[in-house]
Each structure stands twice: as C-alpha cells, then as structure tokens.
C-alpha cells in the first residue's frame, strides 16, 4: 500500500490478515490531518438536540449555534422547540467583560418567550477561556423561572466528541430522578441512544408496545423533559449508539440499580436479537411468545421484499465510515444479509474493544481504520473498487467526486434505516445508488 497515511497515523490503520491485530484509537486528532471528527460541543449537542420541549441555548459566538441549527433529522410528535437555534451570540465586549450578564438576560428572555420544560445551556470554547460561571447563572435562572436550567460542560477543545457525549450524559443525569415514578409497569424500559431520525423511535416503540412493554422515556429521540425526569422508574435501560449514552446507563445503574443491555436496531439480525434480549430479560414466557411472533411476522414480510435487492446487489463492494463503531457492526451484518462484501470499515470514535470486534466479524483483507481523513478514505475507496460508501455528509463528496455510490447513515438523513422496515429502506437506498445508470459516464467506468 502506498504511504497514504501520515507517519503518526499508521498505527490507526489495520488490514485484516496482514498482521496480528493491533490498532491505536481514542487519541486526539493529529494537527493538520483534516480529521472527520467534530468537537466536545458537537457531541453534547447531537445527543441532547432531540429533546423537543427543552430550550437549547448555545452560549458562545454565533458559529457553534448556527452550524447546529436543525442539524438532525430528529422528529418530534409534539413541540418542535429543538428545531430552533438559540445563541447568546457573544461579541467582543462580552469576551472582554464576561458573558454572564448576557447569558442570564438571554435565558430569561427565551424562557419567557417559549415556556420550555427545561433549558440546556451549552458551553463553547470561548466560555471555557473567559471563565463564565455557568453553574451560577443557571442556578439563578432556575430559581427565578421555576424550570430545570442545566449547564452542559461542552467546551469544544476539552477532548473529542466522546467527551461531549459524557457532558450530555451528565446533563441528562441531573434531570433523571426528579420526576414521579408511580404507576410505571414492572415491564418497562427506557430507550437510550436512539434519536428518532425519520421517525425511527416510533417504529421501535411500537415493537416494544406489541411485546407488552411500557416505554418510560425516549433518550433522546422525540424526548420530553417530564419523561426523562421519571426515567429512573424504568426496569431496564436499552442502549443503542452505546458511544453516546452508555455512560448514562452506567450512572443510572449505579445510582438507581437499573440494569442495561446494549442493542442495535440496524439490520434484521441485530433488530431481532435486541427484541429477544429484552424479552429474555423480563423472563415472561408470554412476552417471549409475542416477541417471536413479531420477529417472525416482520422477517417473513422482509425476506420476500428484500430478495430482489439481494439478487441485484450480491457481490458488490461496500465501505463504511461512521461516527460510532457499534453502528459499523450492524452495517457489516446488514451488508452480509444482502450478500454484499464489506472491504473497508472505520469510525471516528471507536474503542479498542470495538475494533477487536470489528476485526472478528469482517473478512480477511478488510481495511479497518480509526479517525480517518479524506486522503486516506479516497485511497481505500479506489484501491478496493468500492461500489457504495456508507458515511455522513462529510464523506459524501469524497465518494461522489470519484463516481462512487453513497448511502447517508448519519444524523442528518431523512430515511428511516432502523427496525425491520429500516432494513428494507437501507437495501433500497443502497440499490438506488449502486444501480443508477449514471455511473456509466464517470471516468472510473469509462476507462474500463
């Protein structure tokens, strides 16, 4: 392989079968390497964003707020306060004299205007430097306005996106435990780490309801403050997107004794396994029967519908580069289900354990990469002759420029890809890119 990586990044790339498995990860991005990662603030913002009846106020200069305005395809069944972008829009004088007064006034103004059920106040790089006391301002606003006002310690430079997830979990943890839990069923759970992109959490909730389980709180897709406040009354935490909310589950287990299980809702295999795991947890034979029936019905429907896609796509090559590696596991399996071959897989924030698991489930020759960048990614795509690349908005032009198909699997997507129906949508998405006649015109194909 050509020396496509900067020297300091070579140990963050691994080709399965070429050497004993070893990969370095969870380290700071290298300066000048054009990482695809974002920052602490981004991590917090995307996790808390879907809580629809809360005010999300970004304390900082305008950029941080404006780049996250309506950033996720996270739907709400009711209020849509989360879709507005609020900022204190700090100016030079605020930076010099401190932004606390402006923050307090902005909070008062916005709470009065929108009557939110709670307010999250996000700290940004600059707030960490000028030393505004967010705790104090929030405490005062809380006393004055009578709603929870929670600081989110998300100064951009204080780590990477994972640190932002932690800050979001800390903020959520302050809400949990403050609500009344009477009347919650013993068969109950919280959904953690689903953000209701394109209505996915509604599909998942419906499966749980059909199983006879009460969902106490969505954390955070289509989330509501009051539900989160009583989340400690649930019997189980079901954690998807473990990178972002596993910490919260751990904290809840420690304080409230709520066990948790990790699941993934992507692909038939993982979706079915998630429902079975949950049914097993509740040890209720009737529930297990109902679960089997759901899976059976859904899979039967799907198998027929998927068949034409599988036939068309068999043998095509896929590459995956996503934020969290748990999603990557599911994608590897989902591609296998439609007989496609995964030749590259990577993530922005995977842990060592994640990469060991990825190595275990992929085929020999697969490139496994941590915290990659455009130059590396293009090299892999070309070398491996990829037909479709799965990633987020930042990866899309890389694929398209080379005339390679693309499937958006990031938080901005507008297609539901979770659940059983989601697998069909996913196949359709992949199919509609791979099978398009436009590739005949791209240089990559013309030269063949």
């Amino acid at each position, binding site marked *: 392989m050509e020396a496509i990586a900067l020297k300091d990044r070579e140990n963050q790339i691994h080709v399965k079968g070429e050497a004993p498995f070893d990969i370095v990860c969870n380290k700071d*991005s290298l300066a000048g390497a054009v*990482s695809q990662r974002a*920052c602490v603030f981004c991590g917090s913002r995307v996790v808390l964003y879907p809580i629809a009846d809360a005010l999300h106020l970004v304390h900082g200069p305008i950029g941080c707020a404006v780049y996250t305005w309506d950033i996720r395809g996270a739907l709400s069944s009711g209020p849509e306060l989360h879709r507005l972008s609020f900022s204190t829009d700090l100016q*030079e004088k605020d930076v010099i004299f401190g932004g606390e007064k402006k923050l307090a006034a902005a909070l008062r*103004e916005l709470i009065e205007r929108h009557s939110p059920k709670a307010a999250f106040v996000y700290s940004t790089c600059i707030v960490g430097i000028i030393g505004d006391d967010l705790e104090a301002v929030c405490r005062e606003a809380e006393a004055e306005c009578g709603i929870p006002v929670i600081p989110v310690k998300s100064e951009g430079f*204080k780590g990477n996106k994972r640190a932002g997830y932690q800050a979001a979990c800390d903020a959520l943890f302050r809400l949990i435990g403050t609500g009344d839990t009477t009347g919650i069923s013993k068969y109950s759970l919280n959904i953690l780490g689903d953000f209701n992109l394109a209505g996915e959490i509604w599909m998942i909730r419906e499966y749980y309801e059909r199983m006879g389980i009460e969902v106490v709180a969505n954390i955070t897709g289509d989330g509501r403050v009051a539900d989160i406040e009583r989340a400690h009354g649930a019997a189980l935490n079901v954690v998807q997107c473990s990178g972002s909310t596993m910490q919260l589950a751990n904290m809840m287990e420690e304080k409230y004794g709520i066990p948790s299980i990790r699941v993934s809702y992507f692909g038939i295999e993982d979706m079915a396994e998630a429902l079975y795991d949950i049914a097993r947890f509740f040890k209720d034979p009737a529930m297990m029967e109902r679960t089997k029936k759901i899976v059976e019905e859904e899979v039967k429907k799907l198998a027929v519908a998927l068949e034409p896609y599988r036939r068309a796509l068999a043998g095509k090559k896929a590459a995956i580069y996503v934020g969290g590696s748990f999603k990557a596991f599911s994608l590897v399996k989902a591609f296998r289900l439609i007989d496609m071959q995964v030749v590259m897989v990577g993530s922005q924030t995977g842990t060592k354990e994640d990469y060991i698991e990825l190595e275990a489930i992929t085929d020999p020759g697969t490139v496994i990469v941590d915290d990659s960048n455009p130059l590396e990614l293009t090299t892999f795509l070309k070398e491996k002759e990829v037909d479709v690349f799965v990633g987020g908005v930042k990866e*899309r032009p*890389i694929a398209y*420029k080379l005339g390679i198909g693309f499937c958006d699997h990031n938080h901005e997507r507008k297609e539901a890809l979770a659940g059983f129906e989601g697998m069909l949508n996913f196949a359709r998405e992949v199919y509609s890119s791979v099978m398009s006649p436009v590739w005949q015109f791209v240089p990559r194909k013309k030269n063949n």
Partner: protein
Amino acid sequence: MSTNPPTFKKTKKPNAISTTNACKLCKPLGACLAFKGIEGAVPYLHGSQGCATYMRRYIISHYNEPIDIASSSLSEKHAVYGGGPNLKLGLTNVAAKYRPALIGIATTCLTETIGDDVAMYLRQYAEDTKGSVGLPTFVNVSTPSYSGTHMEGFHAAIREVVAQLSEGGPRSETVNVLPGFVSSADFRLLHEIMADFGLDATLLPDLSETMDGPALLEYEKIQQGGTPLADIKAMGRARATIEFGPTLGAMRTGGDVLAEKFATPLHRIGMPVGIRETDVFFHLLEELSGRPMPEKYAKQRGRLVDAYVDGHKYVFGKRAVIYGEEDLVVGLSSFLTEIGVQPVLCASGSTSGRLTEAIARVTGDTLAEQPQVFEGMDFYEIDEMAAQMDIDLVVGHSKGYPLAKKLNIPLIRVGFPIHDRIGGQRILHLGYSGAQQLFDTVTNALIEKKQNDSPVGYFYM
C-alpha cells in the same frame, strides 16, 4: 390585494438580547471560502477540531464538493500553554500530505481569546524551516468569530492575501476583479465577460472550478482551479481594481490595500444584479477596455428587457422580504425594484452600518414606499416582522424556508447556503444572463403560486 397602491405602515424592529436562527455565519468560514479560491491552497483553521469539521459540513451541503479544511486540533493543554507547537506541527503535516502552494491560516475565537500570535508563530516557523525546499507560502488572517460575520471574514482574508503577497512594479494591462462571495457560475460568467471585453483580468478569489469541478478518476488532494499565486503577486501592478460591494468601506478591503500600497485605482460598484447595476458594471468595462459592449451582451440585455415586458404584470406590486449578505441584498433589492416588485423588508445579520444608504441608492428613484432596512437581524426577527407585512415572496438562501413555508409563499433561492436543493453553486446571479434567470424564476414562482391556489386549474396564461 398586493397590487393595491402601497401603504405606509411602519413596523417596529424587535429588540432581542438572544439570537434565534441567525442570519449570518461565523468569520472563519468566510475566510476558508476565500482561501479555497486560490490555486493550490489549503484553508487551515487555528483552533479546535470542531470548527473545521462544522464548516466543512456546512459548505459541503451547499456545493456537494469536497472541501478539506485543516485544523490545529487544539486540546485543553494547548489552550493553556498556547497553540504554537500544534500550529507548526499542523502546517508541517499539511505541507507534507497536500503539497500545497499556499496554506491560508485563519484564527478562531479560541485562539484569539488565548492570545495566540499567529504572525509570530509563522516567523518562528520560517526560522525553524530555513533552507527547506518546497515549503508552501503562508497567509494568515485574524478572524475572531465574536466580531463580524462570514462576509467580514471573507473580505479580511482577501485583504490579507493581497497585503501579504501582492507586489508592485511596472504597470501591467491587468484589471483586478474582487467580486466578493458569489457563486461558481457567477465566477465563470465574470471570466467570460472580462475575456469578451478583451481585458486581462485577475479574479480573486476564483471559485469557478475549485468548488464546482468535474467527476474525476483520480481524487485531487487540492481541487484544480483558483487564482494562481503568480497572478496574485502581480495584482500590485494592475492598472485598476474593480470591487463589488456597496456596503464595504467600514473595513479595509483588498481594493483599499491595492490603492494604498500601489496606487491602483479602485472602482467600487454594486454587485451587478439586474439591469441597472449590470449597466454600471458594463459601462466601467467599456471605459477600462476602450471598447463598446460586445454584441453578445447587447443582445442578452435586449432579450432581458423583452422578458421584463412579457412578465411585468405577474410580478408588479408583489411584496418581497429579502435577506442575507448585505451586498447581495442590495443587488437583489435593485433587481426586484426595477421589475416592479416592492421590497418591504431588507434584512441582514451583519452590521456594516451602510445597508440603509446602499439600498436607498438603488430603490430611491423607483419606489414610492421605501423598504424597511435592518442590519443585525436574525430569522426570529425577520419572521416576526414579515408576519405583519402581507408578503408575497421570500428572496434569500435556504434558511428562509421555514418562513416561506409558514406564509405559504414562494422562496426564491439565491446566495449561500442552499442546503435543500442541489446546484447552489450553479445559480447565476450576475450580469444580464443572471438577471434573466432570476426574472424567469421569480415570475414563474409567482405564476405557479397563483395557479396552485386557483380552484379553476387554468393551464394557459
């Protein structure tokens, strides 16, 4: 209703402390876009990793083109001890991996606040790397996002490029064109116009190819196109500079620097949007080239006038909200006014202090009722005012979509960003041909609205 004679109802601008749904972007983003229009350049942000990634995502969603923005990726210890070492490491890495001709370094609020002296770091870096071959040229610009918007960042970057790279010497025949932040299609049109006048021109920046390139076999680390460095160097010798931007002047621009340092005559005119502002531009080109307007443009202008006549009734008296970057808002106000649309609210998120005056210049003679003009606006305020104004049309970038949807009226997508359609970089705003496209779009949107709302379902005008 809207074809009634105008009413003179004044509404009050809300005076909020917080900003909701900003109608502006941050300063470093503008600088990155400006650097992206230089041949062989890599934009570089001296700050934490998030800024670069957010801006890339934001820019990609408009252009659907790759844009690599490097970052110092500062972490907590750098914020405490200074970002110098990471800046130097980052520059070395970018130089090694991209082999750029230029690295354009913009600061962020983080590095401005901790007091990093980028110019000094660059001097040290030059000292450290003395004797190395193949090092890129560096340009740095201070872009704290707590003062000014992406447009101040854009113009500041252009100013610094010129100030740090342009050289004097014997006068050349070249004309500098500093058009500001226009679309790739606009840049291509400007090239064509200058060539048709027989003028040797240097466009700075030049986003015609770098942000609207072809599908490729080999991925380019740095996209082709952009203003060549040699041309930028020679800008100090040019015989004139044309700069679009009636609201510029509160800050020093590239045109100002060229005038001060090299006595290059500066012609600052409005963005050539619509017939009248394009006429101003073409008259200037006639003067500079000593040639009459080429036949091709005379014909374009003729067709445009003919189209204005054909469509005038469908647009007359319609009331529009216009928002976005100040100079574009001025151009659009001029265009809409001359076709008979009534701009009722002209808004921008930035605060040059010159918007009212600049708009009065282009609407004054024609309009009985002057539009309300406000700087420092966000979409919460624009929405609130528009709700009381009986509006038929929203004109601006795609972030005004919620407003248009709420009012159930057409949104004419112009400028940046266009995040809900493809081809934002191919929207033509400038010249007679740009006005032709804008006119057809506006007119047909209004006709379509009427048609859709009609229970009759006419399909003949």
